[in-house]
């Protein structure tokens, strides 16, 4: 593996995101942006799969990437940031990628800084666009800052360029017909180096916010369970029109413990790109709206005509949701 041609390859490495035995949607978005960069630098699209018994998974990724590094290890079955960081560092040192693309998930925000630190390079998190600067070949990374009020573009000059990329802001890679080469890579990791031990795992309600076609979200305007029930009613009615409909929330509803934090949409929560996003009693702070940058249509129901949400919505109703939403539901049932 040490011949010059190998190292001359300009690799763009995508970290495959697993959801148990399946592939998380962000993976295909990363492959999409990876493909764009590969085109700009005339490089090779590569992917790294970490886990145990990951042959099927690697085969599926081989339709989209040229080289698939299969890091099959008994200790890699569950996400463990310190072990994963060690494994990825070893892979980076061996394969010398120019760009490393990692999904911006809670787990990966624990992983990516460790890898960057060990590789001695900078890290840009939560990117929404990437491009190569002509001439220099440096990576330009656009990311929302100041709670989404400003978009900053940072320049990375030292390779490997490592970034985490925000889910749900770009289209996934189109259907693949490649026959990429699957390359086993056994990382040297051992359990004793893991100084943080898992005691228990509490799965909160698993939702499909990141796949939803329609989302009904509530904010500060929802005061109690009764109000929330009206939103849930709208979710049920919308299932007549869309396959996946989910209930979401902005930060105040989560802080009031009306909705679990796994349903919080925004800067520090879930990212979504539904066909229709219905924001009810949500003022529309950019910290929240940055979570639905990719929403096709936004509908706002709010009793304050001055709410910022009406500046970023396509459809608006000014009025108390307690009266508007039941009437909306009834009509939607009839249509």
């Amino acid at each position, binding site marked *: 593996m040490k011949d010059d041609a190998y190292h001359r390859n300009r690799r763009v490495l995508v970290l495959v995101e697993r959801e148990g035995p399946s592939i998380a949607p962000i993976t295909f978005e990363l492959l999409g942006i990876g493909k764009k960069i590969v085109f700009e630098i005339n490089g090779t699209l590569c992917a790294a799969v970490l886990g145990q018994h990951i042959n099927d998974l690697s085969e599926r990724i081989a339709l989209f990437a040229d080289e698939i590094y299969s890091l099959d290890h008994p200790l890699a079955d569950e996400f463990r940031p310190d072990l994963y960081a060690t494994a990825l560092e070893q892979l980076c040192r061996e394969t010398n990628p120019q760009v490393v693309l990692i999904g911006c*998930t*809670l787990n990966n*925000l624990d992983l990516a800084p460790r890898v*960057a630190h060990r590789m001695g390079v900078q890290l840009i998190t939560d990117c929404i666009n990437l491009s190569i600067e002509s001439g220099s070949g440096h990576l330009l990374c656009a990311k929302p800052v100041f709670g989404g009020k400003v978009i900053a573009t940072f320049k990375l000059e030292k390779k490997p360029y490592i970034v985490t990329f925000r889910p749900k802001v770009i289209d996934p890679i189109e259907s693949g017909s490649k026959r990429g080469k699957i390359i086993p890579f056994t990382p040297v990791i051992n359990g004793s180096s893991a100084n*943080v031990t898992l005691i228990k795992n*509490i799965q909160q309600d698993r939702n499909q916010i990141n796949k939803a076609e329609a989302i009904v979200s509530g904010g500060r305007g929802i005061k109690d369970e009764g109000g929330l029930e009206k939103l849930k009613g709208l979710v049920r009615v919308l299932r007549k029109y869309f396959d996946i409909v989910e209930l979401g929330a902005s930060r105040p509803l989560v802080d009031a413990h009306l909705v679990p934090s796994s349903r919080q949409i925004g800067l520090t929560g879930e990212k979504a790109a539904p066909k229709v996003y219905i924001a009810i009693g949500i003022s529309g702070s950019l910290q929240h709206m940055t979570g639905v940058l990719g929403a096709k249509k936004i509908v706002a129901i709010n009793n304050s005509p001055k709410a910022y949400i009406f500046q970023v919505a396509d*459809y608006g109703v000014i009025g108390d949701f307690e009266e508007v939403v039941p009437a909306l539901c009834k*009509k*939607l049932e009839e249509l």
Partner: protein
Amino acid sequence: MNPLQIIVCAKQVPDPEGPADAFEVNPEGKKVIPVGIPPVINPYDENALELALRIKEQYGAVVTIISMGETLAQPVLRKALAAGADNLILLIDPLFQGLTSQSIAYVLYKAIRRIGSYDLILTGRQASDWDFGVTGIFIGEMLQIPVVHLAQKIEIEEGHVLVEKLYDNGYQVVKAPIPVLVTVSSESGELRYVSVQALRAVSKKPVVICTAKDLELDERELMTWQIFNLNKFGEKRECFFVEGETLEEKGENLALKLRQDAII
């Protein structure tokens, strides 16, 4: 048992609750200038401070706050003392302007090394200005101590901590040996109320101020971001307001409009 030594890293930021138009970008497109909004302690770092204070109340601890910046407003950071922290260390130097996350972590790392003894280091999950969310983990890597990311609750046991931490599908309870660095999520709760009287009571309390020279920093480690450009986020949409005689009629008309436009 000696009281736990807790260090909380806190950043001064422009109040993130300020309106969007209060954040201007300078003509060169390289700097964000907050207009007419006051500096505050980064709200996520306030979550970390609150968690530290709860541990102090439950187990006994000495809580030290460290903050760094090219300039810092003392009254803003004294709020941490008023809330119940014991010591405040300010790292102030013109060299600290525009530093990368790694360099920020390096300065804090040097300050923590200078303090010497620590059981628990807490940081907020991210800063509300640049939203990187990496400084805490970098500090932990530099100190070569375990890091637990996104805590909502911490319990102390002999020689280790039990942390309830968020992850993508819910939360986990993990156990880590002391000393440990823990980043704190907003789920842990807001900082307690700090009264004007409490602020006044700490206004004369001594504060330690250090410069880059005091910390014996290697200046080559202080790198600044290469900002290509900054743009105000400008996406606005044209809102069609659905009308009606009554609120019920508005609700019905919204359904009809969405159907008419083939949204549903």
